């Protein structure tokens, strides 16, 4: 029987195959290692030890091990935060560092973690099991952890305030939410500064500015950042825009309200929180579901709309101007009181009211060419109404009963 033909490259091929065999073994170890190298394993061991030290070995045995998650079917949230943050519901770890710290219990009573998960309030990526991906900011996950660190990056007045945005997704119709100071401050500003004069919020308001009811859902790509320096985020855009609207949008008619930084930040948090609530109705038990006006507000609106100053309300002048003599109070009070416009225009511009309305200058030129467009007949009515208001003002002044003029 003939011998087998030897291959000329047998030796070299055997060596190559051996190297590849080694590589296969290496690759097996590599992916096995990547499975065991997650930090949550370390944190779980450490927490178990801490529980053993504090409460004894028996108690430590009840600490679950392995990947943990809170699955909230109603919200479709799988929050794996508790794999590392195991102390959330343990009493006695209030003063230690994360991830071994107890969660403040009062808020958890009202929002049980089994029903709300973690990310509903804190943001972050619940799916992830490693801190960088879970906490963010990380590419392709738009909801980073609303942490103190992030508050520091934005130099917030209250560094930990960011997650109040999450409160307001459900509590948007509260006039005041306990514990959400920044949001409460912003809500009060919305009322006092009269944002609704121009903007619809929750279905109510003027049409000069865009509807803000769900502005928090606007994609970050849809803002114009060309005039914004620093962080290119929707939140930073809102803060800058609230502080000086014209700096970001050249031709805006939105006035500068001289908000402090703290106010602008609070308002930015509020508008960012105006998103559709993904929460089923049963979760909102006790929280208001609509944004009703108080009887006083309704009465005030009726009075202004039907009283002697009705024309100014109907035409839209009242958005910026009060007409105190006729009982019209502007929500924004940006422009001067029109009660004395007859006199005031003369002293400011050296022209009569008729003349000024025919050829306005400054802000009024913009407003009368874009927002409130009047025909010549309507302008004549305007002059007539302004004269009546001035007459009323002088009558009240003579009687010593004139209300204080705004601005």
């Amino acid at each position, binding site marked *: *029987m*003939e*011998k*087998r*033909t030897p*291959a*000329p*490259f*047998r030796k070299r*091929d*055997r060596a*190559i*195959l051996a190297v*590849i*065999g080694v*590589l*296969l073994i*290496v*690759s*097996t170890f*590599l*992916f096995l290692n*990547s*499975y065991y190298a997650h930090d949550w394993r370390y944190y779980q061991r450490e927490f178990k030890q801490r529980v053993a030290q504090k409460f004894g070995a028996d108690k430590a045995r009840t600490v679950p091990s392995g*990947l943990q*998650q809170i699955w909230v079917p109603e919200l*479709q949230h*799988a929050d*794996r935060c508790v794999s590392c943050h195991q102390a959330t519901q343990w009493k006695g770890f209030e003063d230690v560092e994360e991830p071994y710290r107890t969660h403040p219990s009062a808020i958890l009573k009202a929002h049980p973690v089994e029903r709300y998960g973690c990310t509903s309030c804190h*943001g972050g990526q619940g*799916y*992830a*099991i490693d801190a960088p*991906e879970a906490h963010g*900011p990380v*590419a*392709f*996950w*738009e*909801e*980073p952890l*609303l942490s103190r660190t*992030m508050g520091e990056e934005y130099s917030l007045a209250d560094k930990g305030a*960011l997650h109040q945005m999450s409160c307001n997704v459900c509590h948007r119709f509260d006039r005041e939410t306990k514990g959400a100071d920044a949001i409460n401050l912003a809500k009060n500003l919305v009322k006092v500064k009269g944002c609704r004069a121009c903007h619809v919020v929750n279905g109510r308001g003027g049409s000069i500015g865009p509807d803000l009811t769900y502005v928090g859902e606007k*994609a*970050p*790509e849809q*803002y114009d*950042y060309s005039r914004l320096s620093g962080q*290119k*985020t*929707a*939140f930073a*855009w809102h803060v800058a825009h609230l502080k000086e609207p014209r700096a970001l949008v050249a031709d805006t008619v939105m006035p500068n309200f001289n908000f402090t930084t703290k106010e602008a930040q609070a308002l930015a948090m509020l508008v*960012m929180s105006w998103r559709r609530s993904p929460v089923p109705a049963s979760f909102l038990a006790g929280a208001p579901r609509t944004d009703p006006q108080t009887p006083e507000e309704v009465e005030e609106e009726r009075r202004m709309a039907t009283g002697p100053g009705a024309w100014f309300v109907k035409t839209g002048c009242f958005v910026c101007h009060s007409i105190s003599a006729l009982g019209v109070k502007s929500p924004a009070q940006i422009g001067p009181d029109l009660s004395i416009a007859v006199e005031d225009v003369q002293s400011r511009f050296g022209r009569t009211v008729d003349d000024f309305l025919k050829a306005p200058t400054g802000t009024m030129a913009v407003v009368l060419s874009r927002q409130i467009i009047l025909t010549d007949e309507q302008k004549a009515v305007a002059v007539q109404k302004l004269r009546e208001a001035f007459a009323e003002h002088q009558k009240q002044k003579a009687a010593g009963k004139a209300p204080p003029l705004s601005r």
Partner: protein
Amino acid sequence: METSTQTQKSQAPGVHPRPLWSVHPESDRQAGDAIVSNFILHWFPAKALVASLAWRYSLWLGTASAALLLLLVLSGLPLLFLHVPSVERAYASVKDIEYVVTFGYWIRSVHRYAAHFMVAAVFLHLVRVFLTGAYKNGTGRNQRREWNWVLGVMMLLLTLFLSFTGYLLPWDQLAYWAVTVGTNIASSIPLVGPQIRELLLGGRNIDQPTLIRFYVLHVIVLPGGLGALFAYHMWRIRKDGGLASADHATALPAKVETPPAPTKTYTLLGLARGTGPTIRASSVEAPDTTVNSVPDLTRRAAIVVLGTIAAISILSVFVHSPLEEPANPLVTPNPAKAPWYFLWLQEIVTDTTVKIGSFTLNGAFIGGVILPGLLVGLLTAWPWLDKSPAGAAGRWFPKDRRTQNLVFLVIVFLVLALTFIGTFCRGPYWKLYWPWESWPVMPTRI
């Protein structure tokens, strides 16, 4: 030696006395037995030409492609159990694969990189076959290599479409918009374009009907088709007498006449139809030109297959597969790109879209339909258009095929260059950036 043969004989063929065994054939006959008695190895010839095993000739790119296909099937099976093909749940199920399934991220990465590399390997295999003129019939009788080339072109298209259908399944922004770009190009075909798009999408928008169509195509129809064509491709190689480079070796006269063997040995019966016993006169049986398929060919195949597996496996541990934001029809990522292997087409589409006043010349028709159609048509028909002599088959850069190889290489270079530009140089608003230039920071929410 005699005793081991006896032991072998006392066993039924294919049944081995030990569960863990290795083959150490001591004679050519035993080496042949190892092929014939083994189910997995039955498609190999008993003996193989040293010339056709050369690294430098075939670069073993076909074997690498097959290894990648094997890896794709193996890694695809667990993913089938884990991925939920529904608009509401697909994204979350991929997140779960990525984060909580044991080794899930690795399985997904293996699947993804194997897919990308398979597109590349199959393309390079095609380039190699063209440059060596391996679609040409050589000296063997009844060779039909041109049809195997046509099968190969079909398999390349199937590979591309397999990868493309897999793109949609994670239902993230990358998936959604890559498929948007891809199917919009399809819709620019005159007359039937919109209908083709509607057929692909199962409607006019990318939604659940699209997902389930792409899913079924990806996991059943296309792999089934590719598997069948793969088997046919392999069978044709045997029927066409092995690699084209083997033709030269068989044509050479034997250095020494091999005396007829006292016992029957396995000959290269399947090597070329009709040659049969006459082949003995040539060098095929000569000891210095052939080796036993077991273990010399199988060892080399193992090197390529296991090497590919090791490379993909190690790469997948270190480079995780990205998963973008959940698909959002309202927000277009900037830039929105087709899968990388279609980016040369997208690049041509943008470059041939010309606006003259109100008149727009639709580049999608030129770059998306005419040009690829023309290229695929030419590729398919090329074996019949190539009139170079049979001797030019199975060699790198033969003089007879210099011009066509040059033209082909220029086209390949252009495709690669455009792919490179589309992948690395196109930034937001499809503006050109150097690869080392950073793109403007894209805004985020908070």
